[in-house]
């Protein structure tokens, strides 16, 4: 049966007798490693379960480093979905082969090498096309009430001539003429002139975005000033607009020396200028790196963890983004003032703040469909450089940064504060994150719309949104209450530091021993559905009666390659139950270690005689035991405890 599910290409590279280590416990599993063009697959011996990791795998510098005399050669793989896998390969030669093959495969030179171009979910062209039509940004602006008497669609960028990183369709104030727009775009970094991204109908206030002005120390641009004036005039509720520079002031000042900078309040009538102080992509990259170093080390004491969490600065940065979004939201919804948001190029911090702000203001973006629309609009269409930031091709490592991950985390922090306000659950966010990096779907490939059109992604790849929509019932938040959203259209989160939590399910999604052993999500979804059946309620049009999530076998049969969600499983000992667990994220039915062994109840007791019993390890018992007692009463070393420690 194993063979049936193995893709043909796995014959390419196959290594037997590989040991898979769990990084937080002393467990290990033996099996065979297969390397294909797109996947690395580990199959546990004497078991019919396979696991695979996708294209996103990259090998850390320490990978392939062999220590002499050891019982094998370690291969450490760190994935972009924060999975960390440690293999021990028996022969050094095999290890190096895999290592170098991986290095080659993980650094494709052209987009055509990415998985999206070979991924085939057995859909016909029409289905594929329908998938791509699921999200329509024109309709989204209509939903906001644009065009209207103050805002219009401009065709100035129809051919990407004015700004090649913007979409073709842009919305500007009706009083902004083409010469004004073109003039302004020349005064803005990368031509990214101020355009509308969200319209708050109730107060006719607009959220606009752009890049920094090329003001240097004294330059000014009349067209740019008129464009800002036009934005201000388009809102009768307020006599001024806020200009939110999301950078720390120091960074903006430094940019002036390079002929860039920020708006001089003296030159622009009716603006109020404000710095917000979100750090740049390099700081964010280093911060995540630090965080991963801290949480990846073992054993980790509570103090090390908290000190590390603090010194990584990660939650501080998350808080800064949420704070900025709250500022934006208050300006628009309370004061009724239009806001222009920018940073340097206007595609990182600006995307974070505009999208998060919109999410706070508009309940629609807190639905599954609305959230897709939001990402499509503020991230994909406005040119967040996914290819560079997520390192899709062999690019400049200095361009890589977890900006989008931060956005998803900010949303998660909000879902924790408002459990009823979001239609989707955490699992939805995790799936999106997974596929931003998997390159299995075309949505996030490339850096901007123009590039995507050149790559003909709509013709040659599939859309993630259609896939997620087809599995909608798996992503529902059972606590979602539309009535709550009606009563609280605008969310007012608190950003007091103690409301921010470490997002364990993101950064330790694959570290089994780290998770709560029971998740109520599935239980409650099932309960709710059962109760609906009793009531005879026909589920809402979009969601079919919830079928049980497809089992692994069902999915595998329809594909040559293991489908993406299954690739989440690469780790820990595997049995049937385990596989199911991962398919449903944390919705495990099992209870801790015990349940894992429940198929084999004898083992729990039997375990006492061997190292088995140390699977669940409660801290440094061994160490204390040895050192403390040794001084007075030597030679009382418990092998059971001691041995377990040696092996980890």
């Amino acid at each position, binding site marked *: 049966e194993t063979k049936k599910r193995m893709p043909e290409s796995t014959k390419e590279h196959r290594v037997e007798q590989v040991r898979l280590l769990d990084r937080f416990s002393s467990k290990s599993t033996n099996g065979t490693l297969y390397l294909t063009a797109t996947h690395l697959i580990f199959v546990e011996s004497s078991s019919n379960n396979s696991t695979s990791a996708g294209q996103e795998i990259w090998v850390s510098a320490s990978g392939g480093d062999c220590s002499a005399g050891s019982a094998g050669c370690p291969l450490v793989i760190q994935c972009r979905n924060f999975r960390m896998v440690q293999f021990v390969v028996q022969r050094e030669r095999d290890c190096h082969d895999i290592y170098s093959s991986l290095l080659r495969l993980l650094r494709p030179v052209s987009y055509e090498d990415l998985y999206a171009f070979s991924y085939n979910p057995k859909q016909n062209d029409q289905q594929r096309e329908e998938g791509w039509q699921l999200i329509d940004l024109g309709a989204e602006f209509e939903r906001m009430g644009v065009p209207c008497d103050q805002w219009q669609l401009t065709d100035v960028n129809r051919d990407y001539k004015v700004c090649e990183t913007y979409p073709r369709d842009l919305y500007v104030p009706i009083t902004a003429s083409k010469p004004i727009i073109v003039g302004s775009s020349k005064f803005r970094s990368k031509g990214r002139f101020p355009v509308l991204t969200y319209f708050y109908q109730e107060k006719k206030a607009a959220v606009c975005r752009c890049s920094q002005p090329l003001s240097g120390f004294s330059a000014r641009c009349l067209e740019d000033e008129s464009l800002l004036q036009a934005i201000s005039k388009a809102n009768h509720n307020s006599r001024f607009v806020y200009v939110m520079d999301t950078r720390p002031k120091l960074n903006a000042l430094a940019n002036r020396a390079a002929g860039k900078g920020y708006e001089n309040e003296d030159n622009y009538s009716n603006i109020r200028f404000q710095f917000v102080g979100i750090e740049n992509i390099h700081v964010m990259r280093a911060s995540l790196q630090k965080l991963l170093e801290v949480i990846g080390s073992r054993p980790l004491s509570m103090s090390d963890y*908290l000190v590390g969490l603090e010194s990584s600065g990660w939650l501080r940065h998350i808080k800064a983004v949420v704070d900025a979004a709250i500022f934006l939201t208050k300006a628009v919804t309370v004061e009724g003032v239009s806001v222009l948001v920018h940073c340097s190029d206007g595609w990182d911090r600006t995307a974070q703040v505009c999208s998060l702000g919109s999410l706070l203001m508009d309940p629609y973006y807190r639905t599954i469909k609305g959230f897709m629309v939001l990402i499509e609009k503020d991230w994909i269409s406005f040119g967040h450089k996914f290819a560079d930031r997520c390192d899709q091709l062999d690019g400049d490592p200095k361009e890589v940064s977890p900006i989008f991950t931060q956005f998803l985390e900010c949303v998660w922090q909000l879902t924790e504060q408002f459990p009823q306000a979001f239609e989707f659950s955490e699992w939805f966010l995790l799936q999106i994150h997974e596929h931003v990096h998997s390159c299995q779907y075309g949505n996030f490939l490339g850096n901007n719309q123009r590039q995507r059109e050149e790559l003909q992604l709509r013709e040659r790849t599939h859309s993630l949104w259609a896939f997620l929509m087809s599995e909608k019932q798996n992503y529902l938040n059972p606590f979602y209450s539309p009535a709550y959203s009606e009563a609280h259209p605008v969310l007012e989160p608190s950003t007091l530091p103690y409301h921010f939590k470490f997002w364990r399910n993101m950064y330790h999604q694959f570290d089994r021993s780290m998770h709560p052993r029971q998740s109520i999500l599935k239980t409650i979804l099932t309960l709710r559905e059962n109760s609906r059946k009793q009531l005879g309620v026909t589920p809402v049009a979009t969601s079919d009666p919830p079928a049980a999530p497809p089992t692994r076998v069902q999915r595998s049969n329809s594909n040559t390659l293991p489908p993406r969600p299954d690739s989440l499983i690469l780790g820990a000992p595997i049995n049937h139950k385990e596989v199911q667990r991962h398919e449903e994220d944390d919705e495990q039915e099992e209870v*801790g270690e015990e349940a894992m062994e429940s198929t084999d109840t004898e083992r729990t007791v039997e375990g006492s005689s061997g190292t088995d019993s140390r699977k669940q390890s409660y801290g440094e018992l061994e160490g204390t035991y040895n050192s403390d007692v040794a001084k007075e009463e030597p030679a009382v070393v418990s092998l059971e405890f001691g041995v377990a420690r040696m092996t980890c």
Partner: protein
Amino acid sequence: MEFSEHIKTANVEDVVLRQPLHPPSRGTLCITGHHLLFSDREEGSSRQVLLLLRNIDAIEKSVENLLGYSGFFSKAGLSERTSGSSGTITIKCKDLQVLQLDIPGMEQCLNIAHSIETLSCLDSVSEMYPFFYRPADLSLQDQWGLSSPESYYSQMKELHGRWRLSSVNRDYSVCPSYPPAVIVPNSIDDDTLRKVAKFRQGGRFPVLCYYHRKNGMVIMRSSQPLTGANRKRCKEDELLLQAVIDGSDKGYIIDTRSSQQAQQARMTGGGFESKSCYSHWKRLHRQMERGKALQESLIKLVEACGDESNNMDRWLSKLENSKWLSYVQTALSTAGLLAECVERDGHSVLVHGSEGTDSSLLISTLAQLIMDPCCRTLDGFLALLEREWLQAGHPFQQRCAHSAYSHTRLQQESPVFLLLLDCVWQLWRQFPLALGFSEALLLRLATEVYASDYGTFLCNSDQERCAVGVKDKTHCLFQALLRPREKDYYSNPLYEPTELAIWPSVHPQSLQLWRGFFLRWTQQIRHLEEAQEEIRNMVIEWGKLALS
């Protein structure tokens, strides 16, 4: 009543109350022997706030005598001599709530403050409120408590072969902090027990506290042996422990002190079971913080939660510095170790630290929750608390005399029980289906243990409770919590009993600050509570429909 001598001013009008989660309101303040009563006199509202004086941990007063500044107020000031001065009393409660009262008239303010200070820390147990509390739907004739060593023993038929119920302590003379009946090995007679008791601090000889049905192994607890610097031995003690593991190759002793601390304890007459004398027992040392260190940790954590600097780094640094979460981690992992020894290794375990009235109870309770499904129901959990904390002699009165805000010099205060509740909450977070009770129960207990209408947590031991007649003259909290309406409220609607052990993850990433308790008076947490209440009702509704 004698309370009246402490009350100089019983009523004050025109007081402004500032309370978290409520807008300030103006009304009448009334002080009685046990309560502070505030009634709102504003139009359209009739809010009453009843605060048990016992709940008050600290008060701060500031008075302003405006007459002193008559120079500035010469025009308006002197017109009303009496209201020319005013004062503010800040009341910090043991449930972490902070209230503020603006009281007109300096003298009244000082009188009130004085009354609160005196009445909130009266020492005499029999004058405390539980002795006066008479709710209509409870009767003093009702059964007091849920469980006893006798009933535990008679229910556990499996015990009867090798274990017996001893009443050696029937008059509390062998061990003042133990209940009259205890479970000990069958082969050990009462005379031997008396001798063992002399060898253990406070007379706390090893007794059975848990029998693991799956494999017949047990958890025993005691205090430290009094080996002293001369390494004294006690044949009877060795005999008793040998009888515990009779027929098995070994047992474990989990000492909740580091081995260094255990060594040092010998200098003051205490000690530990040495390998040479207890050859079949393996000692494992796990240092658990107790006493003052734990109290200071709580104080620091509560201070950190009140910090309004809105600075992430500062918050994380203070959280770390408080060490509270480290103690949660240690407690859970030591309990895990204990359960591991019993359930996985299949050996019996003796748990003790020095006195055996704090950390030992903490980890034996947690280990029982981990292993024993019977302890995870609402009734089972309360019965467990009754056995392992009340009957086992945790000195509640000393430990919970003050909480995080008190300025008085600390003596025996230590939030061990609060630490237990926090650990149980962590378990509950990790196994939301396996425990039969709700977070609300843990919050309720965290409040009641410091100030209560019920007699349950009064005194330091069973003996003391008998002496003042707690069981005859007060109502039992646990019985009250099991009344139908309360029981519904404190049950977990998602509860699905499981026979399996629930092994918690003790990685720091898996543990969390108990926001529901430490931040319970903030707007956000209240908001979350409301959401959870709604969710809870939804779930109950779905559950009913799904069953129908």
